[in-house]
């Protein structure tokens, strides 16, 4: 398959764009693989790509029940960041940002990772201390962080309400310059193309309906396209984790599926040049290259697999948006949608061998899965290839909950809706 470049564009334009080939081939499933990855979302595709690239394991199938990237990889607000508090998180997400920085070249696919920074606005001295603790933790963990004064914020984000009379006046902001946004769908397509070029079978419209067992061991899957066996079965299905793991007889996990809504406005000329979060509530917003403001807030807060939310969260998010940017009251919401989040009990993910022999689980991404895609795929591939976690994902076990070794960024305990 040809490399993408400006010259290939030029050449194809000359030919009326009639010579382009499929970005990835539509594979027919074989009956046997070394590794099956259940879930053709960002994490599953990245895992397949790194299995092939880093470990030379190419006899791999990615099984996707619908169209590739139909889960959260195509429904998020495209933010990439590693502005975390706890050392385990900082190490993991910072590794992810490093992979992001090279991803377009690595994949020969422009995923449009744009390091426009993320700015967490703080609205009280106590909140500022809290953010400074986090910023300092990032710096001590090898990451990047800066503290901005209201004056510096005014320059960076014109239009934000910095008045002292604001209900929650801005006292400062924590900036992570290396954070930014990426084109979400392109990540799925880029990894799919990359994996396909290295020999991975990408099988769409193939829903896993059960697992093949030999004793305790999982040895394959039943699917809508027949039985497929493999030495190793990896599950990376995010919001569908509960459903898929039930097929393997795992009835309870420290995970709940919740709906999170996301929003875009109509397309505007450049309005904001960085990712901004509002500390007086729960809001994150940025502007896409097409000009839409892309934003979101809290979970709806109840278990759901429905990919649709309700009005209270819509109204809350809009209220916060216009509180932060009073000039946006006349800008219009174009579209809203819902994604299903695999909310874990401490807000951090699970990347592990097991829980059954022959099985590997990648889950619990809450609503931070998009930015984790490269590191998740990379460490999951390592874990599958070596049958043991890499140091970077070693803390993200399934047992940590019962053991009390929690990675609780928000300190909210086992309350998924609060993470």
């Amino acid at each position, binding site marked *: 398959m040809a490399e993408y470049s400006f010259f290939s564009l030029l050449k194809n334009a000359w030919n009326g764009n009639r010579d382009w080939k499929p970005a990835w081939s539509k594979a027919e499933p074989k009956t046997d693989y070394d590794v099956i990855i259940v879930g053709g979302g960002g994490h599953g595709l990245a895992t397949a790509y790194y299995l092939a690239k880093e470990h030379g394991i190419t006899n791999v199938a990615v099984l996707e029940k619908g169209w590739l990237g139909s889960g959260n990889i195509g429904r998020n607000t495209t933010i990439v960041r590693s502005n975390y508090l706890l050392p385990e998180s900082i190490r993991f997400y910072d590794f992810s940002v490093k992979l992001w920085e090279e991803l377009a070249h690595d994949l020969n696919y422009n995923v449009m990772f744009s390091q426009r920074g993320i700015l967490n606005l703080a609205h009280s001295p106590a909140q500022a201390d809290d953010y400074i603790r986090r910023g300092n933790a990032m710096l001590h963990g090898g990451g990047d962080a800066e503290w901005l004064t209201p004056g510096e914020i005014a320059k960076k984000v014109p239009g934000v309400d910095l008045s002292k009379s604001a209900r929650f006046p801005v006292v400062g902001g924590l900036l992570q310059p290396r954070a930014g946004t990426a084109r979400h769908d392109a990540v799925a397509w880029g990894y799919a193309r990359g994996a396909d070029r290295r020999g991975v079978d990408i099988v769409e419209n193939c829903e896993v309906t059960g697992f093949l067992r030999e004793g305790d061991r999982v040895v394959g899957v039943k699917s809508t396209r027949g039985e497929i066996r493999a030495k190793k079965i990896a599950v990376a299905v995010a919001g569908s*984790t509960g459903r898929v793991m039930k097929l393997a007889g795992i009835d309870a996990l*420290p995970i709940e599926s919740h709906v999170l809504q996301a929003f875009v406005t109509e397309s505007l000329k450049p309005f904001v040049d960085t990712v901004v979060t509002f500390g007086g509530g729960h809001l994150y917003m940025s502007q896409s290259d097409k000009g839409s403001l892309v934003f979101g807030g809290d979970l709806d807060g109840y278990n759901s*697999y*429905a990919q649709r939310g309700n009005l209270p969260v819509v109204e809350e998010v809009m209220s916060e948006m216009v509180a932060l940017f009073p000039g946006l009251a006349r800008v219009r919401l174009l579209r809203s949608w819902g994604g299903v989040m695999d909310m874990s*009990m401490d807000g951090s993910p699970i990347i592990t061998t097991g829980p059954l022999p022959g099985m590997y689980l990648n889950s619990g991404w809450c609503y931070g899965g998009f930015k984790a895609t490269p590191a998740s795929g990379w460490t999951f591939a390592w874990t599958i290839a070596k049958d043991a976690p890499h140091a970077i994902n070693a803390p993200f076990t399934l047992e940590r*909950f019962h053991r009390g070794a929690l990675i609780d960024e928000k300190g909210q305990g086992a309350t998924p809706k609060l993470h």
Partner: protein
Amino acid sequence: MLITCPYCGPRDLAEFSYQGDANRPRPDQHDTDQARWNAYVYDRSNPAGPHREYWQHAGGCRKHLLIVRSTLTHAIESVAFAGAQGATPRPARRSPKSRTKTGPAKGKKP
């Protein structure tokens, strides 16, 4: 979403506070089985379909309700006061009109 509180009648979602999975009984206060406590705090059945769950009518009568609701469609199958032993959840009403016939006698749990 509209939830028909057995006392207050059909009310908007905004008045309610989700209190989570109702499928996991809290062990007795004197229970010393660590596994049971771990399961209670951390393990969730997370079904795709009917889900027994608690909601509090926090912006109303403040009672906790046991609701069976589909996580696939959000359709509510039944609502009852929580904690009432052996309570059969009552079928949800469709129409917000039915307020006048709503609810048991004051304070009596069904």
